[in-house]
């Protein structure tokens, strides 16, 4: 009531202000008005300006019927409105004229229909119009038309604070049965947490008793529930999710035409939808663990601060449900209230932004309990295999993965789940997703890694297809990359305790970390050696394996981890003897990187004693290097001291002439075609091909140049051409 009184005063005298703030804005308006006057002087002859002047000055009680002045002026305004839209001042004048009923109710509808804003709608005009709603005797249909107009232009109103200030006033219309559907919509758009009060909830509940279950009441109540769940208990039927109807019919086409012409597109607010979760798959599922809970604010905790003291403390927090943009999130980041069910965070990208900076152990634990539960129930406890191939499961896993990628971190509940699941997995169910999840697990302590990871993975690897083997190699490579990245981010020079997982704060010493990484590399080495044998050195598998060693060879320089592990012979020789030049070249590149890493480590060793490289490692590396250069460049394949040794008799029996040459860069199966090609280019006239002639000093260096120019940079780095 107080608000009403206050307002009627405002409407009476233009000078009294609603608040200080509005006074200042009025000053702004005034200066605008002065400018406007200037402009008006210049355009004194503009008939539109004259028309507006007519409507602002016309005396109350002037008859409409037979009034040509009125008719002409109105037609003029309509013409402008439908073509260019009305500027704010014009809107104010026309709205004021219509709602004040200065010339009766007849022109009201016609004017309301032509109130097409060109840019914005002044807030003051709307507030005044609301007040006129109670003062004059406006017919109900016109009242509704006005409210519909407000709803249509709602987003174009230049400010909402004064409208919110008269929330109670607008609320008072809700008891009017005819208006209440539209009033509820306006209120829905205006409601803030502070406008939700017990007496308003009561009023709506009373209305509900009187009118039965009306969707508009439900929508408003459900918004109230979002703000103050302790005040409203309500369950929303699933069919009622669509939100309010659009009421923009009379203005829609004209408005969009004007907006198109003015080149601005103000989004219409009337399509405002429920923030409630969108409808999930129509098919009913027997088990519903994969359904994300709805984002809901906490009910019970509010309850302890009795209704009287809901005030300061709880009003300061902003439930995550109400944050709609990143800007709002930033603004309120210090007082965000977590939702009632943490699982709901997974469904909203905005919430994930917040989750990323939450360091609340309980909150993460809640999320993990939910996630772990869903994974366990769906993939481990669920007896019937039918549900396991469902689309929901796929969507769920993908959502989980994108979340983990976003956070650049795995959840420990999915990790715990994986350790169990690997023992039951057939290697094909959701393979890409499971492997991707697996690559996200944090560093496993070396004492546990064998039992948790290696045993189940080994079984899967040796019993699965080539395709799975490649997938697993890729997964382990990506796992190693993530571990190394964690290390390079968290490891501090002096403080070797690295928090590998900031949320569980597992402390691991550098040596512990190194042990785990080493075990992983050795494990992959074993898998790779046997895998290559099983698959006949398949070049695709080899390629994935070389990917892995490309990561391994650079652990020291790229990730600052003082660890160098060379590949086992089971990987080195198949790569060296590979039939495709790319693999041989990649091996050369990898060996080159090993060399660079080892040399750099050696120089560091002298300075800081950062770490000690075992002689064994260096010996192995040197050996590989010698083998590689001797084999490819020096044509000394089966010489004593080389890695591959065959008995002399056996070699003789093979009838291969100059067998020591058979794996040099000319005769190597991977490069033979290049040698032939080179030979033809070099000696186009020659009829008999003698590849050995390439080996002569000059052609040899040309040949190397030629090979390097084909993109074999790895080879080039090992033995640069002179």
């Amino acid at each position, binding site marked *: 009531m107080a608000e009403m009184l206050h307002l009627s005063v405002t409407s009476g005298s233009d000078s009294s202000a609603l608040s200080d703030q509005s006074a200042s804005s009025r000053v702004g308006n005034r200066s605008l008005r002065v400018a406007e006057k200037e402009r008006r002087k210049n355009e004194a002859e503009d008939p539109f300006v004259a028309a507006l002047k007519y409507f602002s000055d016309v005396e109350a009680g002037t008859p409409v019927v037979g009034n040509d002045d009125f008719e002409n002026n109105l037609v003029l305004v309509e013409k402008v409105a439908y073509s260019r839209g009305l500027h704010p001042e014009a809107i104010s004048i026309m709205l004021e004229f219509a709602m004040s009923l200065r010339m009766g109710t007849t022109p009201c509808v016609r004017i309301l229909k032509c109130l097409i804003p060109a840019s914005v709608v002044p807030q003051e005009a709307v507030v005044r119009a609301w007040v006129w709603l109670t003062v004059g005797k406006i017919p109900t249909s016109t009242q509704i038309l006005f409210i519909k107009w407000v709803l249509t232009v709602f987003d174009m109103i230049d400010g909402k604070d004064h409208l919110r200030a008269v929330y109670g006033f607008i609320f008072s219309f809700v008891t009017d049965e005819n208006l209440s559907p539209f009033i509820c919509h306006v209120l829905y758009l205006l409601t803030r947490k502070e406008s939700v009060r017990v007496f308003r*909830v009561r009023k709506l509940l009373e209305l509900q008793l009187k009118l039965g279950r009306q969707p508009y009441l*439900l929508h408003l109540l459900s918004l109230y529930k979002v703000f103050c769940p302790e005040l409203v208990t309500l369950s929303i039927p699933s069919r009622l999710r669509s939100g309010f109807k659009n009421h923009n019919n009379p203005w829609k086409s004209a408005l969009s035409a004007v907006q198109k012409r003015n080149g601005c597109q103000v989004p219409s607010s009337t399509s405002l939808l429920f923030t409630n979760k969108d409808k999930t798959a129509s098919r009913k599922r027997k088990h519903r663990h994969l359904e994300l809970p709805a984002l809901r604010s906490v009910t019970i905790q509010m309850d302890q601060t009795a209704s009287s003291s809901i005030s300061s403390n709880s009003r300061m927090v902003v439930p995550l449900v109400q944050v709609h943009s990143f800007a709002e999130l930033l603004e309120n980041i210090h007082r965000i209230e977590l939702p009632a069910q943490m699982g709901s965070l997974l469904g909203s990208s905005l919430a994930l932004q917040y989750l990323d900076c939450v360091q609340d152990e309980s909150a993460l634990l809640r999320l993990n309990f939910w996630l772990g539960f869903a994974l366990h129930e769906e993939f481990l406890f669920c007896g019937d295999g039918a549900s396991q191939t469902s689309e929901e499961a796929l969507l769920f896993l993908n959502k989980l993965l994108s979340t983990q990628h976003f956070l650049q971190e795995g959840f420990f509940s999915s990790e715990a789940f994986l350790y169990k699941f690997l023992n039951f997995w057939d290697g094909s169910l959701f393979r890409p997703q499971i492997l991707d999840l697996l690559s996200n697990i944090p560093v496993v302590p070396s004492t546990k890694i064998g039992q948790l990871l290696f045993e189940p993975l080994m079984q899967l690897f040796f019993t699965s297809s080539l395709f799975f083997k490649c997938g697993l190699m890729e997964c382990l490579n990506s796992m190693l990359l993530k571990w190394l990245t964690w290390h390079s981010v968290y490891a501090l020079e002096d403080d070797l305790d690295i928090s590998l997982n900031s949320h569980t704060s597992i402390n691991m010493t550098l040596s512990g970390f190194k042990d785990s990484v080493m075990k992983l590399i050795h494990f992959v080495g074993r898998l790779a050696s046997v895998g290559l044998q099983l698959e006949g050195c398949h070049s695709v598998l080899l390629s994935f394996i070389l990917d892995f060693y490309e990561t391994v060879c650079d652990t020291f320089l790229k990730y600052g981890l003082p660890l160098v592990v060379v590949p086992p012979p089971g990987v080195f020789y198949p790569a060296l003897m590979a039939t495709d030049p790319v693999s041989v070249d990649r091996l050369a590149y990898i060996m080159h990187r090993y060399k660079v890493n080892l040399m750099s480590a050696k120089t560091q060793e002298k300075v800081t004693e950062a770490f000690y490289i075992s002689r064994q490692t260096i010996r192995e590396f040197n050996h590989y290097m010698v083998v590689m250069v001797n084999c490819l460049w020096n044509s000394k394949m089966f010489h004593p001291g080389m890695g591959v040794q065959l008995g002399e008799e056996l070699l003789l029996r093979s009838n291969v002439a100059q067998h020591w040459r058979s794996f040099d860069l000319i005769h190597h199966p991977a490069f033979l075609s290049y040698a032939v090609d080179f030979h033809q280019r070099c000696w186009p006239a020659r009829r008999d091909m003698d590849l050995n002639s390439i080996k002569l000093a000059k052609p040899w260096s040309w040949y190397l140049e030629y090979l390097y120019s084909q993109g074999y940079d790895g080879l080039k780095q090992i033995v640069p051409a002179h």
Partner: protein
Amino acid sequence: MLNMEQHRGSAVRTPINGVPVQKRSKSYRLSYGSCLGAASRFGFTPTLTARRFSTTRRVSKLHNVKEKINADQLALLVKMEWKLSYVTPLYQFRHTKLKSYSRQLSVFITAEKQQGLAVDVDRVQNSYRVSFSLVHGMAGTDDAETVLIQVHSKHMFAKKDEPQKLIWSGWLTCMNGNSDYLGSLPKDFICLPLFGSSGPEDLTSLVQSWFKQNFDCCIGPLEISHTSLQWLAALWTNCHNEDNIQHLKLIWSLPVAPPLQITYTVDPQDAWDLWGSVRKGSGAEKVREEEEPGKIIDIDEVMSFMQGLNSHFYKHFRLDLSSGSLKEVATSLGSAKYNGKIKISNSKYMITTLTLLTEGALLKMPI
């Protein structure tokens, strides 16, 4: 479906000597706590191996359970058959706020029952009255107190003065939960992992979803596993001396086509004798351990007990029950089914049974 019944007093008596003499392995006093301890560097990532069923079980005969627990509550607990679920730890659950929970849940149920009609919280004319109450005396040292929930309602066409009837009841409990697990949870979590309910299913799911929404927990079905059922069979048989178990009924299902279900009923005295024979020889060892003899039961004893029963059955029917799985165990002290339904008819053995079930519930925890 073939139903083979072996009634008591049938021609065949359960042989005492039919049990292969088992070399008794040492009774490891290893609680699964130590396994978890080994994995404690994981923080909250206990491994598959971290939590396991206890291999030994103390037969705690809390005869004073009758004195400690309110008689009405006890009567209710003993009267019903309960459908079990497991519950992940409850966030911000307060035993001091049960009154407010009662109100909230009743409003919630009302609102859900009349979809799309808001409920006035303060002036609610509830057709559902919910009461939360503490069950004093039903908790181990580290456990949170047991909570009993009852839903009363009036029939739709009931007379005004007709009293509301109990239509649904349920409880949340933790009986001797693994103290390492409980201790690892932050303060604002309350662990009441075992949830029993009795009443219409729609109310069960409403109560569960209220819990999920308000305490951010997850609730899933809890089966009573093959091993748990074997344990129960042994534990109940172990009580025969004090309380006649009347019969030991085991229902097995065998994986053949068509599925074969076998009901195997054993004479209580025979079962007791068999049980005594597998426990023979353990006495000396136990005494040396300075434990009261007969108070500790080892998993090996349970296994040889079951093996004895099975080999007897095999002798007569040439059917090896161990290839199937145990689906149900029943004695006069109670009955337990694989699908998670349990009835504890005698309050004396309630604690032991609930301890076993709590263990099962904790095993299902995702982390």
